[in-house]
């Protein structure tokens, strides 16, 4: 199979006396969907934060596409093609849905800064069409002119998904993409994410919903108390007694 797009190499992170991550060594292969599961407080979100530069690890490094990204600015990491969808929706509440998706599209096209004060936004048809296309895909096209603040939580997550996808990321990091969604919306999100798998987008998903994990993941890594306790194909992991004890058995 293909090479590793993301390599989390030997990462440790402590907050005060709490060991949030220890000995994390993880490889995400090109074109796969890699799920990270684990009980609450296992360090899943911390791991994702380390990957996007929000949290600096104490030791170790994160390598994306052959380049060390530890220590880089969040916007630099994004510009390299690593995009994250947050657990609590992070959107632009005072902008319309359409503009919410156009902003990341501009970041993709124009880079991290451009003084394009004399262009006219409404004449940027390519960007607008692209944004509308993604809004349609997540089912929010009808509301494209409303303010994002007025959306329900589930809709905000779908909006954020469109904001991530419009950037055509090489690596998409999803933090519980279906939390707070109805069964129906969850299934349509799964379908949407499957589509990108076919197009070769690499994804890392943190998820509690086992239905989502087993419908999407090619590989599953199980974290517990900041350590990797299992790593393998979904079926292998499901059958692993250690995992069942630490997570599946305990939680269900």
């Amino acid at each position, binding site marked *: 199979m293909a090479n590793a797009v993301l390599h989390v190499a030997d990462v440790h992170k402590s907050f005060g006396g709490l060991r949030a991550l220890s000995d994390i060594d993880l490889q995400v292969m090109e074109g796969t969907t890699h799920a990270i599961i684990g009980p609450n407080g296992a360090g899943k979100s911390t791991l994702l934060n380390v990957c*996007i530069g*929000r949290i600096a690890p104490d030791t170790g490094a994160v390598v994306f596409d052959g380049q060390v990204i530890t220590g880089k*600015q*969040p*916007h630099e990491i*994004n*510009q390299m093609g690593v995009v*994250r969808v*947050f657990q609590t929706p*992070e*959107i*632009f*509440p*005072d*902008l*319309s849905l359409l*503009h919410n998706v*156009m*902003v*990341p599209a*501009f*970041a*993709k096209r*124009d*880079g*991290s*800064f*451009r*003084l*394009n*004060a*004399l*262009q*006219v*936004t*409404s004449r*940027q048809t390519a960007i607008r069409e692209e944004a509308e296309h993604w809004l349609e895909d997540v089912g929010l096209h009808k509301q494209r*002119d*409303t*303010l994002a603040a*007025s959306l329900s939580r589930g809709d905000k997550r779908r909006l954020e998904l469109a*904001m991530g996808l419009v*950037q055509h990321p090489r690596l998409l990091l999803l933090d519980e993409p279906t939390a707070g969604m109805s069964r129906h919306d969850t299934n349509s999100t799964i379908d949407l994410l499957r589509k990108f798998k076919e197009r070769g987008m690499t994804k890392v998903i943190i998820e509690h919903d086992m239905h989502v994990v087993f419908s999407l993941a090619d590989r599953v890594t199980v974290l517990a108390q900041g350590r990797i306790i299992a790593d393998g194909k979904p079926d292998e992991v499901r059958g692993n007694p250690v995992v069942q004890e630490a997570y599946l058995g305990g939680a269900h």
Partner: protein
Amino acid sequence: MAILRNDLVRLALFALVVLTMPVWLAPIGAAYPDLMQKIAIYGIFAIGFNILFGMTGYLSFGHAAFLGVGSYAAVWSFKLLTMSVIPAVLFAVVVAGLFAAVIGFVSLRRSGIYFSILTLAFAQMSYNLAYSVLTPITNGETGLQLALDDPRYLDAAFATAGPGIPPPNLFGEQLAGLSGFFFCAVLLILCFYLAMRIDRSPFGMMLKAIKSNQTRMAYTGFNTRPYTLAAFIISGMYAGLAGGLLAATDPLAGAERMQWTASGEVVLMTILGGVGTLVGPVVGAGVIKYFENIFSAFHEAKLHEAFSFLPDGLENLLVTATAPFVGEGWHLTLGVVFMLIVIFLPGGLMEGVRRIRGAFTRRPAGQEERGRLAPAE
């Protein structure tokens, strides 16, 4: 590269309203050039301030520093180069822009209240420096004035000096009275056009996104620092232009222009008119300058005149009741008006206009949201 048709209509309307000020301000006794000039100049100041505060969400409490710097720069251009206002105004804009780049670079390391305090500190520092260490440049308390023996190298090179200090001019035309107003009015319209272009541009969209959720911008791939710095410099240049025009219409510059009260005034103008709207700041500037000039000129005798149609007892009572709000007390009126607007119309006077228009057009409920989103006019 033209802007949208609707915006062209807006621009034309704005230009019409500004240029006809001498006509429609006459009935309320405000059609004299000095006041109209001030309205236009402070309108420019407030439009620029709104680019930083209204669009980007950074509340600067030190913008008067750029106004003052612009004034000093313009007067120095008069003293050293020529009495023509074009180089003076350009010089004011450039110097204020450089000054804003320095102050912005430091202040923008923080946001929110800390940013406001930093800008306030910088402005007060500039104010105090102008009175003390920088006296050779600012002429301290007296203020920077023109003098008969100023070199005016450019003017001297092309013509022999006449008697007396020549007045500022535009291509040889003396800028006084109405011509002074029209010069400022044309620049106000240009500044409005530029602000509108910024508002409708991707750059403006990024500024609004920064205001809405700055952290998200970084994870969206934007380096927000140059965006905020650019907004800061642009608004500093607007303030510099306003300062330069103040000096062009009345060629002297004093440090009091940089004081924190002057910085506060532009905040009031913007909030009063409507934060984040294009026209609002100009309306706010107009209202405040009108109050300052008209209400402060009122005095008791005038009040007696105004209420003279009433019986004597009632007349005296009303005069006593209203006297504290006029003349020296015009700030009291302004304060009351400001409070009423902030409480009942948090979006400023422009929100009032929108509500009145909404009451007449009666949009269906579903479109209400779209109406709110429509770019501010």
